[in-house]
C-alpha cells in the first residue's frame, strides 16, 4: 500500500508541478496592447502642419529579402492611415502636401517577425524497423519538431521636420500589437487601438 502511495504521490507531484493553466487565447487576444512614448523636449503646440500618406503603410518582414517588397497599399493600410489622419486633424494639426514644407511627418509602418525553427532529437526506440532474412530489429533514429512563431506590430511615429538639423527628430511614437494573432477578421480592433493611442496622449495637440 505504501509503495503504491509513493508512486501515486510522486506522479501527482510531477503532474501538478507542470500544471500551470493559462488564460484562454480568445480572451487574451480580444484587445491589442497599446504603448505610447513622447519626446519631453517637444512643445506640440509649436507645430501646425504634417504630411502623411493616406493609402500606404511601410511593411517590413524579417524573412523578406526583396527591398521593393516593403509597402502595404490600399485596403487595411488605407483604413489605418485614414484613422491616424483623422486623429491628427482632431488634435488640431493640418495635413499638407509633402512639398509644402510640413512641420511633421507621420510615418506608419508594420514590422512582422516570422520564424520557423526545427529541432532534432534522438529517439533510441522503435523509430524504424530494419528487416532481414534472419529477422529484423527496431533501430533508433532522429525525430524532429517544428515550431513556428509569427507576430507583428504597428508603429506610428511623428517626426519633427522643423528641427531636422538638431537631430531631435522624434516627437511621438506608438506601438500596437499583436496584429497577427488577433481573432478579429476586420480592422475594428486595430482602429480602436489607434484611437486609444491618441486618447492616452493628451499632450499631442495644437
Amino acid at each position, binding site marked *: 500500500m505504501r509503495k503504491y502511495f509513493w508512486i501515486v504521490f510522486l506522479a501527482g507531484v510531477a503532474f501538478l508541478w507542470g500544471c500551470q493553466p493559462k*488564460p484562454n487565447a480568445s480572451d*487574451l487576444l480580444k*484587445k491589442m*496592447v*497599446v504603448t505610447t*512614448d513622447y519626446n519631453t523636449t517637444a512643445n506640440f503646440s509649436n507645430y501646425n502642419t504634417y504630411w502623411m500618406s493616406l493609402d500606404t503603410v511601410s511593411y517590413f518582414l524579417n524573412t523578406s529579402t526583396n527591398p521593393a517588397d516593403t509597402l502595404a497599399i490600399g485596403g487595411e493600410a488605407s483604413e489605418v492611415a485614414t484613422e491616424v489622419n483623422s486623429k491628427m486633424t482632431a488634435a488640431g494639426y493640418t495635413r499638407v502636401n509633402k512639398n509644402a514644407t510640413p512641420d511633421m511627418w507621420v510615418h506608419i509602418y508594420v514590422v512582422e517577425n516570422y520564424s520557423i525553427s526545427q529541432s532534432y532529437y534522438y529517439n533510441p526506440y522503435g523509430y524504424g524497423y530494419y528487416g532481414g532474412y534472419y529477422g529484423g530489429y527496431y533501430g533508433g533514429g532522429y525525430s524532429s519538431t517544428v515550431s513556428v512563431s509569427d507576430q507583428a506590430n504597428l508603429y506610428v511615429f511623428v517626426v519633427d521636420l522643423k528641427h531636422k538639423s538638431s537631430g531631435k527628430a522624434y516627437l511621438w511614437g506608438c506601438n500596437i*500589437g499583436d496584429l497577427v494573432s488577433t481573432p478579429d477578421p476586420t480592422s475594428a480592433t486595430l482602429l480602436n487601438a489607434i484611437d*486609444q493611442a491618441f486618447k492616452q496622449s493628451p499632450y499631442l495637440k495644437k
Partner: protein
Amino acid sequence: MTMKNIIFSIGIVMGFSGVVNAQYYYDRTKNPDKVAVQKTSTGRDFDHFFYFSWDLNKPLSNNNFISSSSTTGTKLGFRKRLNDEDKLWVGGDFGWAVYKQYIPTQTYTVGTQSLTTDLYNYTYNYSLVANIDYFFLPMKGLFVPYAGFGIGGSYVKFAQYYNIYGTSGDSWGVMIRPEAGFLLGFKESSPWRIKAAYHYDYASNTNSDFNYKNFMNTGFQVGIVKMAW
C-alpha cells in the same frame, strides 16, 4: 467410648477438615482464579493514512495583485501514527493551488511611456510541508477532530499575461500552516473517510518585480482519506 471421647473425636475430625478446606481455598497456584476477558470490537489497528483533497483558498495579502479566491487547488498527503497513544500523527503533504484574476483594461503611465492593456494575473503555488497532527478522539471513531501544524517550503511562480505577451517571476520561501479539522468515517473503524479542514498559510515568498511580499492565505480543504495498517 464415653460421650466425652466421642465429642473430642468429632472435634479433631472437624478441625482437620477445616484445615484441609483452608488449604484448598487459599492455594491459588494450583487453582488460579479465572480472569474475565473483556471482549471489544476495535477493528483494524490503523497506523497510517493517505489523503487527496480539493482545496479552496482565499489570499489575505498582496490583494493588489490577486484578491480573488481560488477553487483550483489540491493537497496530496499522508500521516503515520507516532506511537500507540493514537493521538499524535506525523506526515507531510504536497499542495498545489492556482490563483488568477482579471484586471480590466487600464492605462499605466510611467514617465513618458503609457501602456494600455487588460491583464491576467496568475500565481502558481506549490508547497511541501511536514505535519504533526493531534487527534482528540480515538481513530476508530466515526468522527475524529484534530488540530495540526505544518512547516516546510513554498514555491510561487508569478505570471502576468496580456495579449501574446507576458512576464513572469518566481520566489522560494518558508511556509508555516496551522490547521484544524476532522475525519469522518462511514462507520466505526472505517477504512475510507472524509477529511475536512480549515488552514491558514503564511509563507515568506517575496518578489519585488511584482510587488509581492509575504504570502498569506486561508483555505478549506475537503477530500478522501484511505486508512491503512
